[in-house]
């Protein structure tokens, strides 16, 4: 635990010092992505930081204005690419809300399983990288096997691993095969053991605790003023979770707890994520246990592709197939905001439709773009090495930051 430097010293005292300017990034192995921070340093103590953004800006909001609704899903993959299925589902649910589609319970439960798996994958990356940055490489390599396992599950569902484009507007394109279910069962059976082993490496480790406790803290008041959401807000002690506050995709059916921290420092963010992984596992087992039977997609021929054998043998199915693939389906006029609990906060979709084939305006509320602006405030007076682990523990993802 180290004291924060008093930056309220009289100006004269400060004037005598000579500061050095340090460029941290844009391509630095410790920043895990394309982040640049211009730091004003007094020796090894940070006085001020100015983040530079936009290195991988890809104009998603402009692109989305020319794409039919189904073709926007691949764009959402590339926002927070550590948990792309959540982004995909969020977008599907936004469109389903706009067209007022009713999704069968079975599809919703299957979506919950996929979303919770990808939340675990997201938290694995974040927590193991905190370990890596504090000097514990073992846990990083060990738990990444399980991230691989999750990606294997995604692969057997949809064929892709990282940028998944999973699911469709209206539901899943087919039932999952037995192989997928077997893999999920293996995961929920064996992952808790691996997670416990990982935690014994770090959770009560003296070196890890010394490095992370009181490092990059944020008070609950400041976190709210900076519009924090997700694990970072919960680590500061606010129990806000979109899954509970405005349940989507049948989250109200599940019994789970929202872990919160107290001081909002790196250690709290680590422990909150750790507990969330355990809660996610519990949600997945509940979903498997109570899985309803029935169809896996809604009955909306305007948006959901018909089965291939019907396309080849049936005139109507062929017409619908052509209309959907060419993106010629009009949607109703409307203006909606839909949010889901992403891996790092409230991921919102603000959509204005003028009734055409593409959105008139689509805005992504990207959680880490909003909370990353508190980063200079959080590292003022800290050491350079603390700034690095503060950034990894905030789970800032370059793709989502720059859109």
């Amino acid at each position: 635990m180290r004291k924060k430097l008093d930056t309220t010293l009289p100006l004269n005292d400060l004037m005598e010092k000579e500061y050095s300017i340090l460029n941290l990034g844009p391509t630095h192995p410790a920043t895990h992505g394309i982040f640049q921070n211009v730091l004003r340093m007094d020796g090894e103590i940070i006085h001020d930081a100015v983040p530079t953004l936009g290195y991988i800006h890809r104009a998603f909001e402009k692109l989305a204005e020319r794409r039919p609704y189904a073709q926007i899903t691949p764009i959402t993959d590339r926002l927070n690419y550590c948990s792309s299925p959540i982004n995909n589902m969020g977008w599907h649910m936004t469109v389903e809300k706009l067209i007022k589609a009713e999704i069968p319970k079975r599809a919703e439960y299957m979506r919950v399983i996929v979303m919770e798996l990808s939340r675990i994958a997201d938290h694995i990356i974040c927590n193991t990288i905190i370990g890596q940055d504090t000097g514990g490489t073992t846990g990083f390599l060990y738990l990444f096997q399980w991230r691989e396992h999750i990606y294997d599950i995604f692969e057997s569902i949809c064929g892709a691993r990282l940028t998944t484009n999973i699911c469709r507007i209206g539901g899943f394109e087919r039932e999952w095969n037995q192989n997928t279910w077997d893999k999920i069962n293996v995961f929920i059976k064996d992952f808790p053991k691996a997670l416990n082993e990982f935690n014994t490496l770090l959770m009560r480790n003296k070196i890890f605790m010394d490095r992370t406790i009181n490092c990059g803290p944020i008070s609950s008041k400041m976190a709210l003023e900076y519009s924090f959401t997700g694990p970072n807000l919960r680590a500061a002690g606010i129990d806000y979770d979109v899954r509970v506050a405005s349940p989507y995709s049948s989250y109200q059916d599940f019994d789970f707890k929202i872990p919160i921290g107290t001081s909002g420092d790196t250690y709290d963010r680590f422990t909150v994520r750790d507990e969330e992984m355990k809660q996610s596992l519990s949600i997945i087992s509940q979903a498997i246990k109570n899985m309803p039977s029935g169809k896996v997609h809604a009955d909306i021929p305007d948006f959901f592709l018909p089965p291939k054998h019907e396309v080849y043998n049936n005139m109507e199915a062929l017409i619908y197939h052509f209309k959907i693939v060419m993106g010629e389906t009009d949607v109703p006029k409307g203006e909606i905001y839909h949010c889901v609990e992403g891996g790092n906060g409230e991921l919102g979709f603000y959509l204005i439709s003028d009734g055409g084939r593409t959105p008139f305006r689509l805005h992504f509320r990207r959680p880490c773009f909003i909370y990353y602006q508190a980063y200079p405030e959080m590292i003022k007076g800290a050491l350079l090495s603390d700034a690095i682990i503060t950034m990894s523990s905030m789970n800032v993802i370059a793709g989502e930051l720059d859109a």
Partner: protein
Amino acid sequence: MEDLLNKISLKLNTKFLNAVISSELLYDFPVFTINSANIHEVIRFLKEDEELNFHFLTDLTGAQTADEKQLSVIYHLHNMPKNWRVRVKTYFDVNVPEIPTATDLWPGANWMERETFDFYGVRFIGHPNLKRILNVDEMDIFPLRKEYPLEDQTREDKDDKMFGR
């Protein structure tokens, strides 16, 4: 939702004369359109009123109207303890895109306003550091405005007429 809409519009109409242009329920959201001259005091009131207590700025973004003559700024506010959400919009002329900043109410509005300036050219009066954030500093257009189409419409090497583009 209907109750919330009525409650807020009653409060706004008694507090501010002629500030509320329209109030409606769009899907699950109460939506208020506010005169751009009053927008700052209205969101300040929504934030600081004890009962309404919209203390959390979920999102701030811009948009343009279909006739390209007006820009809008859209605020999504949230009252977490009661789980109320509200959308507040304000429209202004595209040639005089100026509204007061919300950074004095929420420091988190800083980058959201910079992003809106970057893409729509909305000048937030009183913003501490209003410059481009995602695009390069040398850019001299505001790319999300509808007058800048995504592809060059005069190109002849791409013929998509068949599919209604």
